[in-house]
């Protein structure tokens, strides 16, 4: 890797907020204008740094929500006791500036040549890097079969719902609602467990083992990853990313 490229990703730079998109009551997508962006891969994240007037600084990592080649965007869920997310979701307006560095990550990434079939499993805002993968697949006109299993509390909490419901380019989307279901809901209910995984996941015994990306809260990821390995998925084909309500 060229030295200059590393330095670029290491340095904090000022980004301009170009747009703030309301996704759900608690979730916003922030589209950023970044002058020195080296380009990113689907699944990577970036670090955001906020500095208070007294010099106190807080940093958080956010998954990049956009595909390679699209404007940089992050999707942020408001955590009521958070230091950073309430500012990003409630206060930030187009034209504001924030500090960021990135892109970061070389493990939880999908490039077209990684192939598939792709099994994407999201818990809550764990959908964000998987949405970048879905968009990248579509933009690059990949014909890799893809299936998304997405667990949310309620239908109103489903992020990117309109986009996911397009089922673009043959993407299969399976929802499960864990806490509350709208009247007439015919989809899955309850948390992702071994039975639901067995029903939804690509069989592992095909010539080309599926490639799984699992992102969500720690306990969700542990359940899904061990469930997939029990179904015969090679551990190296189950990529995991855990997020928590806290940061550095």
């Amino acid at each position, binding site marked *: 890797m060229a030295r200059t490229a590393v330095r670029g990703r290491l340095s904090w730079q000022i980004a301009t907020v170009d747009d703030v998109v309301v996704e759900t009551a608690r979730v916003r997508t922030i589209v950023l204008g970044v002058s020195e962006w080296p380009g990113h891969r689907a699944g990577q994240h970036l670090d955001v740094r906020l500095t208070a007037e007294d010099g106190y600084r807080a940093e958080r990592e956010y998954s990049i929500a956009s595909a390679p080649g699209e404007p940089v965007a992050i999707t942020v869920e408001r955590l009521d006791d958070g230091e950073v997310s309430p500012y990003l979701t409630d206060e930030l307006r187009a034209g504001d500036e924030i500090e960021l560095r990135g892109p*970061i990550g070389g493990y939880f990434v999908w490039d077209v040549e990684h192939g598939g079939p792709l099994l994407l499993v999201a818990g809550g805002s764990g959908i964000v890097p998987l949405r970048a993968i879905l968009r990248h697949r579509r933009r690059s006109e990949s014909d890799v079969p893809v299936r998304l299993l997405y667990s949310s509390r309620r239908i109103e909490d489903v992020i990117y719902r309109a986009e996911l419901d397009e089922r673009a380019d043959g993407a299969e989307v399976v929802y499960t609602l864990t806490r509350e279901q709208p009247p007439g809901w015919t989809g899955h209910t309850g948390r992702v467990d071994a039975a639901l995984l067995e029903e939804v996941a690509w069989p592992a015994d095909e010539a080309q083992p599926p490639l799984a990306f699992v992102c969500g809260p720690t306990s969700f990821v542990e359940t899904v990853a061990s469930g997939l390995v029990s179904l015969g998925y090679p551990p190296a084909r189950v990529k995991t990313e*855990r*997020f928590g309500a806290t*940061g*550095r």
Partner: protein
Amino acid sequence: MEALDGNAIGGLLLEVFGAEMTNATGVCAHCGASGELATLVVYLQAPGTVVRCRSCGQVLAVIVERLGVKCVDLRGVAALDRAD
């Protein structure tokens, strides 16, 4: 305190090593297990950042910041190999 994984310290590792490290392979000095750094167990809210082996739970690395300087203790890492 909730455990995360090595993805959560990608930026910190980039800062410390000057390279993308989440897909580097680390070998545990305690049990010999190896895996990508992204898969390791990470605690962000300890005094500093604590990295533990996913197989045996022993401490692989501790990173603390003091007066703007990052102090890196790789006490439990037997080997570290970058992917590229």
